[in-house]
């Protein structure tokens, strides 16, 4: 028997004045999966993500988590019930050390200082931040800050981790290093929803990919299926692109 999805977004619409950023989009995230959310620039991915994380309320539609409606639940309460997020533009507590940064997340489940600090160290080691524990977060490299974002979110011990473009801005070798990290997080039992631009990573990581274009969900399926879907190719490359590509392929085969 199929279990109910961990996260269900149903008919999400978000309007900013006259602009419809997300238009009646639905998405389910299965427990234990890595689900990818992709789409061209301006498709509404970040808005959709913001609604799930509780940083914006949808104009219409509902979000439910573990069968419970959380559409109007504020962001900090979502963290309490097990939803953690990272930020696309990293938001470290720059004046604090790496250890103190992660401890802020760990305090959610460990009210005592010693326990929170120990927990922060464990998570830093898991994410390869061990040697930088006492460094100021403001002094980290971009890759280090991305890892810190994930470490802090993980420290809240979530069951669903929302990753907002954690690979953006990294060079190819840093991306290669990061992929096993994300996979290890999933293998430890955390469900992941990832918004990502780096296609190579999406194809390698995700079990399911959903494609958002102009605010609408246009495709969903396994990464390979989605990548060859004409609607998706058109959304990325423009109207008629799928036909042209087919024609070109046909010509080269001949």
């Amino acid at each position, binding site marked *: 028997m199929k279990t109910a999805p961990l996260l269900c977004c149903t008919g999400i619409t978000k309007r900013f004045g006259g602009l419809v950023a997300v238009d009646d989009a639905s998405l389910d995230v299965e427990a234990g999966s890595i689900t990818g959310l992709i789409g061209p620039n301006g498709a509404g991915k970040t808005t959709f993500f913001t609604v799930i994380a509780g940083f914006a309320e949808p104009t219409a539609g509902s979000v439910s988590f573990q069968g419970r409606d959380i559409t109007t639940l504020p962001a900090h309460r979502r*963290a309490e019930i097990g939803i953690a997020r990272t*930020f696309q533009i990293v*938001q470290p507590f720059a*004046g604090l050390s790496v250890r103190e940064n992660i401890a*802020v997340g760990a305090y*959610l489940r460990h009210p005592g*200082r010693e326990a929170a600090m120990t927990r922060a160290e464990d998570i830093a080691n898991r994410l390869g931040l061990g040697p930088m524990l006492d460094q100021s977060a403001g002094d980290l490299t971009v890759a280090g800050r991305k890892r810190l974002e994930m470490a802090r979110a993980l420290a809240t011990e979530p069951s669903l981790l929302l990753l907002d473009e954690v690979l953006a801005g990294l060079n190819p070798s840093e991306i290669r290093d990061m992929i096993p990290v994300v996979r290890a997080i999933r293998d430890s039992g955390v469900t992941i929803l990832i918004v990502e631009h780096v296609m190579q990573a999406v194809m390698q990581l995700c079990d399911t990919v959903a494609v958002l274009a102009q605010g609408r969900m246009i495709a969903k399926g396994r990464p390979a299926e989605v990548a060859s879907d004409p609607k998706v190719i058109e959304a990325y490359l423009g109207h008629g692109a799928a036909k042209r590509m087919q024609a070109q392929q046909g010509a080269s085969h001949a």
Partner: protein
Amino acid sequence: MKGGFLTSGYGPILIVVAALAILPFGFSANTTLNFLGFVLIVTLAAQGWNLLAGYGGQFSFGHAAFFGMGAYGIALAQVRFGLNPWLALPLAIALGALTGTILGYLSFRARLRGSYFALVTLAFAEVFRILANASAFTGGAAGVLIPLRIDAANFQFADKRSFYWLALSFVAFVLLLTHWIARSRFGAYLVAVRENEDAARALGVDALAVKLKAITLSGGITAAAGCLYAQKFLYIDANLAFGPWISVEALLAPIIGGIGTVFGPLAGAVLLLGLGEVTKTFFTWLLGGAVPGIDLVVFGVLLILCVAFAPRGVLGVLRRIVPAFRGGRP
């Protein structure tokens, strides 16, 4: 995290407080004791400001609102309602804390940050000052005179040292409280809100609740300073209790001493008022008469020097050049 007794934890607090406690045995002159008592009152007001602004990042320009609530609270409770000042003390502190909660609720719920929050606090303090100056209940422009009845049971001491030690015990209590908060979950959340409110919320921090707790505590602490002020001088009026002077000193002391540190307000108040006093004396000697406001010039120069060269205050500079101070950061 680990460190010697002298450089971390409660050790330095106990040493500093003990040193301040034996100070009156060195100076017996009343003027010196008066001055030291005043320094401790400003320290206490500044400790309140430091908790909210230094740790929580919510910069207030109107801590006079809380100081005045404490001062008027304890004075009016005695004069109008005949309460014993020791009984009025916790009530006046609670009044300051409540003022903090209300002011915080109104401005934080409206998501006021930075200079907008600062302006709202300033406006509140000014409104209180004008109301206290106009209302018959608060004695109008004539202020409130607390009847002289020297008796320890009446919160008026024959020996100036008793008042000094009482004020010191308040300051010591807040030093310990601040140190404890800085190492607690609440302290970590407060600093997280200061550094980045959105990131803090994503990690499960209820930013509104954290800021409300901070401003309530802050209001209570600064109101306690107002209580001490009223009992020391036995006279207050709207400009003394709600005037901008205390808002300014409450924020200058931590900024000059070391913002967001346990000892910053104390170090800053000692330096600020000490230099102000020395300058006043020097100019009086030089010109043969007092130069009004010359200490304010010193405050201004100190502030500019700190902002330009020592953003972490005097303690920050000490920590950079003297290794022994380094462990003390909470």
